C-alpha cells in the first residue's frame, strides 16, 4: 500500500464514513441546539447585566464586576467540570448538556456584559443630556438613544467573542455530551479508524463557516459613519 493510499484509508475511509455519518449529523443537530441556547441566554444575560450596571448603583456594580471577572478568568472547561462533577455532591445533578450550556452561557454572559458596557460608556455624555433635556426618562434614553449607538460599536467584538465561545461546545464531549466531537470520538474508538474525526471537522466547518461569514457581513453592515 502506498503512503497516499494509507492516508486516504486512515482519514477518508469510505466504509467507516458511510457507517458513522448519521451519528455525526445527530451530533451536528445537538451542537446547533446547544450553541443556540448558549448564544441566546448568554447574550441576553450579558445585556441585562450591562443595563443594570448603567443604573449606577454602587453595590450592584461591584457584584456585577466580581461575577464578570470570575467567569472571564476561569477556563470554560474548569467551569464545566466543576458543575458536572461538583454539583452532584450537593444533590443537584445536571446532565452534561445542561452543564455545558450553563458554563458557556455564563462565560458568554461575562464577556458580552463587558462588551455591552464598553459600548454604552462609549456613547458621549452629551447624548444622555440632550435626550434627558427633552424630557426622555432614563429608560427611554437608554432604549432609543444610547443602546442603538452602543450596539453598533458592540457588534464586531461581540460576534467574534460569541463565535469563540460557541466553539467551546466541543468541550461538552468531556462530560459525555454527544455533540459533534463526542459522536466522532466514540465512532473512532468503535471503528479503530480516525475518519469520523474528518467528518466531525467537516461538520464544524459546515456549522461555523457560515456563522463566521455572517459575522463579517454584519460587521461591514454596521460600520457606519457618525
Amino acid at each position, binding site marked *: 500500500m502506498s503512503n497516499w493510499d494509507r492516508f486516504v484509508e486512515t482519514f477518508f475511509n469510505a466504509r467507516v464514513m458511510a457507517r458513522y455519518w448519521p451519528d455525526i449529523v445527530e451530533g451536528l443537530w445537538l451542537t446547533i441546539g446547544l450553541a443556540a441556547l448558549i448564544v441566546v441566554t448568554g447574550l441576553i444575560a450579558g445585556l441585562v447585566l450591562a443595563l443594570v450596571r448603567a443604573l449606577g448603583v454602587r453595590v450592584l456594580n461591584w457584584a456585577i464586576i466580581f461575577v464578570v471577572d470570575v467567569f472571564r478568568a476561569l477556563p470554560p472547561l474548569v467551569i464545566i467540570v466543576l458543575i458536572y462533577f461538583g454539583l452532584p455532591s450537593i444533590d443537584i445533578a445536571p446532565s452534561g448538556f445542561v452543564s455545558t450550556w450553563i458554563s458557556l452561557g455564563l462565560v458568554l454572559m461575562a464577556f458580552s456584559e463587558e462588551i455591552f458596557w464598553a459600548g454604552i460608556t462609549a456613547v458621549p455624555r452629551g447624548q444622555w443630556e440632550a435626550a434627558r433635556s427633552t424630557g426622555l426618562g432614563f429608560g427611554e434614553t437608554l432604549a432609543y438613544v444610547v443602546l442603538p449607538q452602543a450596539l453598533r460599536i458592540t457588534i464586531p467584538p461581540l460576534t467574534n467573542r460569541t463565535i469563540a465561545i460557541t466553539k467551546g461546545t466541543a468541550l461538552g464531549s468531556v462530560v459525555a455530551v454527544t455533540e459533534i466531537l463526542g459522536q466522532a470520538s466514540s465512532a473512532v474508538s468503535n471503528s479503530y479508524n480516525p475518519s469520523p474525526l474528518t467528518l466531525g471537522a467537516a461538520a464544524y466547518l459546515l456549522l461555523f463557516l457560515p456563522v463566521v461569514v455572517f459575522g463579517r457581513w454584519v460587521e461591514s453592515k454596521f460600520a457606519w459613519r*457618525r
Partner: protein
Amino acid sequence: MIEPRPIVEARGIHKHFAALHVLKGVDLLVAERELVFVIGPSGSGKSTLLRCLNRLEEPSSGSVVVDGIDLLDRRTDLNHARQRIGMVFQSFNLYPHMTALGNVTLALRKVAGKSRAEADEIGHAALARVGLADRADHRPGQLSGGQQQRVAIARSIALEPRVMLFDEPTSALDPELVGSVLGVMRSLRESGMTMVVVSHEMGFARAAADRVVFMDHGLIVEQGAPAEIFESPAHERTRAFIGQIQRH
C-alpha cells in the same frame, strides 16, 4: 401695575463639585419674553448655572422655579417639566443614528405622546422654522455644523418650550456658519421666546439682548443693558474681561 412673575426664578444657587465651590449664591430672574445674555471667563460657572435651570446639574442649595414649577421639589415630574425648557448645546448632541426629522420627533412621540403622523407634522414645521425643511431625511453626519445646530434648535422648539437655554451655541462652528444659527435665534427672539444665552457673540448681544449678566468665580458680578455693560461697566473685572474678548 402688578409685576408679572418671572418665568425663570433661580435664587441662592450654590453648586459644589466635591471640594470645588463652583456657584456661590447666584440669583437669576428672567422675565417672560426676555433675552438674557450670560458672559464671563472660562470656568466662572456659566454652563453650570444654565444646567441648574433644567436640573441637568443638581444645585447643592437654592431654589429653581421655572414657569411656576419648582424643579427641586421631589414631587415634580421632572421629565414633564423639562419639555418646557429647551436646551441647545455647544456640541449639538444630535442623535447620529436618526434623521433630522427623527431627532426632532423622538420626544414628541415618546414623551408628549403624539402619534407618528402628528409628530412628523410638528417636526416638519419645526425644521421649516429653522430653514431646513429640505433636510428632514438627512442624518446629522450629512449636515454642516450650522445645519446640525439648527436641527438641535428645532428639536427643542418642536416641544413648544416656555424658555430656551443656549450654552455657547455657536462656539463649535466655523465663522461662516455662525450667522445662520444666530439668524434662527433672532427669529425665535422676535417670536417672543424667553431665552438665556451663554455666548460671547457681542454683536448679537448688542442687537438682541435685553440684559447682559457678567459672571466671575461663581458669582454674578454685575448685570445691565448691553450698552451699559459693554461701554461703561461698573466693575474693573468686567472691564478687563470685555476688553479681552473685544481684542479677539
